[in-house]
């Protein structure tokens, strides 16, 4: 009797567990959770830890607290790289958004061979970054840039443009390259958003006598904000952490005018061997990235009225 009861109880516990949705949910999430923990949380934590040590490549370090950060605050090259990173991110993101949205609206109209053109638009995004960086490296070449050549042949200028040699030219040039690469992502994603906006809204607005601009500001843009939030968050993150374009085209030169935090982190941490300092530079990027995410999350999140409700 007692035995039977125990056996019964055992089965029922197992059955109860099996039927517990929370427990099973946890169980099913375990593989994904483990992967995230191993490949995301651990490296992030390790990076933060390294940033607070003086580890060198090939030599274990000791905990130095915030010394790396304190030193970086006085390091003119680091401060310059922070300035460059912000300039790069802000200018490139704004232009990418503007041009991307424009392109998306054009593509959303009925134009001939639409599918083909949409595929072509994606090209800059598909080409490996290093390859496009190399292409730009040639376009911006100091001696035989194709742009300079065309302008000289047209008689607009009389000597080659020093694209990557002058600090401000160099900044503008790398930003232009980044914009070229980033527009397709913005455009195609916004295009997807545009296609979810019901035609009926536009028809109703047209009947009410709204003009093109009013239809854009009152229908298209508001209904697009959730997707804009997502796109711009990703776009800002990609731009802020850009590395390959700079590394191939300028190595952070001339005289560090195009060094971004990511490239400086690599130069100091891996090439220079100061892993601790390199990690500190990378960790210093996290607050800015978090701020960008939070801004777009709270600033541009889904509003009730967009789902037919009322704003409080």
């Amino acid at each position, binding site marked *: 009797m007692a035995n039977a009861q125990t056996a019964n109880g055992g089965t029922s516990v197992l059955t109860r567990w099996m039927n517990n949705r929370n427990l099973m949910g946890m169980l099913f999430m375990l593989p994904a959770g483990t992967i995230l923990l191993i490949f995301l949380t651990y490296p992030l934590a390790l990076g933060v830890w390294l940033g607070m040590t003086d580890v060198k490549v*090939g030599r274990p370090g000791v905990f130095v607290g915030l010394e790396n950060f304190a030193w970086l605050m006085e390091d003119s090259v680091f401060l310059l790289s922070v300035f460059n990173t912000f300039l790069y991110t802000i200018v490139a993101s704004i232009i990418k958004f503007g041009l991307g949205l424009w392109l998306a609206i054009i593509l959303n109209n009925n134009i001939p061979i639409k599918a083909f053109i949409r595929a072509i638009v994606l090209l800059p995004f598909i080409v490996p970054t290093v390859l496009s960086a190399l292409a730009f490296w040639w376009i911006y070449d100091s*001696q035989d840039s194709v742009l300079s050549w065309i302008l000289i042949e047209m008689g607009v200028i009389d000597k080659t443009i020093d694209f990557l040699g002058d600090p401000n030219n160099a900044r503008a040039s790398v930003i232009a390259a980044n914009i070229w690469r980033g527009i397709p992502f913005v455009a195609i994603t916004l295009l997807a958003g545009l296609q979810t906006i019901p035609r009926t809204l536009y028809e109703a607005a047209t009947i009410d006598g709204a003009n093109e601009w009013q239809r854009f500001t009152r229908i298209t843009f508001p209904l697009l904000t959730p997707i804009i939030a997502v796109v711009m968050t990703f776009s800002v993150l990609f731009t802020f952490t850009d590395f390959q374009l700079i590394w191939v085209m*300028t190595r952070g*030169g001339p*005289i560090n005018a195009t060094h971004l935090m990511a490239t400086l982190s690599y*130069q*100091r941490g*891996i*090439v220079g*061997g100061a892993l601790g300092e390199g990690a500190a530079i990378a960790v210093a990027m996290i607050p800015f990235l978090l701020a960008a995410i939070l801004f777009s999350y709270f600033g541009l999140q889904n509003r009730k009225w967009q789902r037919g409700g009322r704003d409080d």
Partner: protein
Amino acid sequence: MKKYTRRQTLKTLGGAATAAMVPSSLLTAARAFAEMSPWKPEKGASIRMLRWKRFVASEGESTEALLKAFTQATGVNIRLDSEGFEDLRPKAAVAASIGSGPDIIWTIHADPHLYPNAMLDMSDVADYLGNKYGGWYPIAKDYSIRKGQWISLPYTFSGNFLNYRISQVKKAGFSSFPANTDDFLTLMTELNKAGTPGGFALGNASGDGNCWAHWVLWSHGGKMVDSNDNLVLNSPETVAGLEYVAKLGETFIPGVASWLDGHNNKAFLQGACSVTNNGISIYAAAVREGMSNIANDMDHAYWPTGPAGVPTEFHVQFPMTVYNHTKYPNACKALLAWLMEAEQYDKFMEASVGYLSHPLKAYDNNPVWTADAKRRVFKDTVTRSRTFAHAGSLGYAAASAFADFIVVNMVAEAAIGTKTPAEAAKDAHRRAERYYKI
């Protein structure tokens, strides 16, 4: 009749195929060495070797053939991998810190000094080779010996000298390339006036940029640190050097501020640049591509001597490092000793066509230096070079300051004129303080 299994057949065929690729003379040499060598490879030894990606195809093929001959003569299997050296260096460092990975890494600069405890003592191999081949040049010892021990084998150096167009230099009024910095400035000024300017990389070019920036700093007596590793960068000598740079910079071809390692090769081969600094690669490319108008009209020269009064050049070292985590130290030593024996090293140098220079005195007479007169300056690479840590010691501080382009940036600032020489020296000194404080 003997029955062959599939495996045996494959083995026989494989062996025959490899044997066919290794010249018999090489094999004989390898067998003879295996008999005589002071280092007997461990039984069943196999070696993993990692090298920087070759610059010249012929050198890569030659080295592979040498390794194959060694395998056949000794039975030691060798797996050779290669990486671009930007990627190779972190890999080498990781191997050092975790104590596992390739047995031998053919690396760059003075990296073994960053992890000396992971290095196998190579003193016996170095002594053996030094005694046999006329001794090591001093720079080879500077790079390899740490606390009385050879932590690496200074396998080869890559010379970086002045490349110039003979006719254009002549037209500027010089029958031979100037040997001192004053004449050099005159030459560069004249070349610019004649519409055929020269130029030196001012971007973050780790090879050409570092070579010319260190030369100009040292040529006027400036240096990063004194022999006790005290920072002395901000000195009247450094400022004098930068004032010279400011004058020199005015003569450069437009665009040098963005130049990385490859730009000057391209500009020179196009005929747009009359003087620049480089390894032998511009010349080798001109010869290889049949650009006789460039190849016949160009030559190489030593860096001019400045107020310092001695050659103040910087050439890059490529050392062989053996990790003490290797299970087969004797096989590694035998292999490296064999590669540096005259028969093999001669082949290596010939295949390198002047890109890579020797650290052992006996190899001065290698035919590679006389086969083409335009290679002759590269013979003296090792006798004219200093370590990048000059005048201090190799280690973290020197490596970090070097990798952070402090000297290159300082020289670029003075050359472009974004800072006055005094400001550039002061700011570079401040940047270097961080590294030399440790």
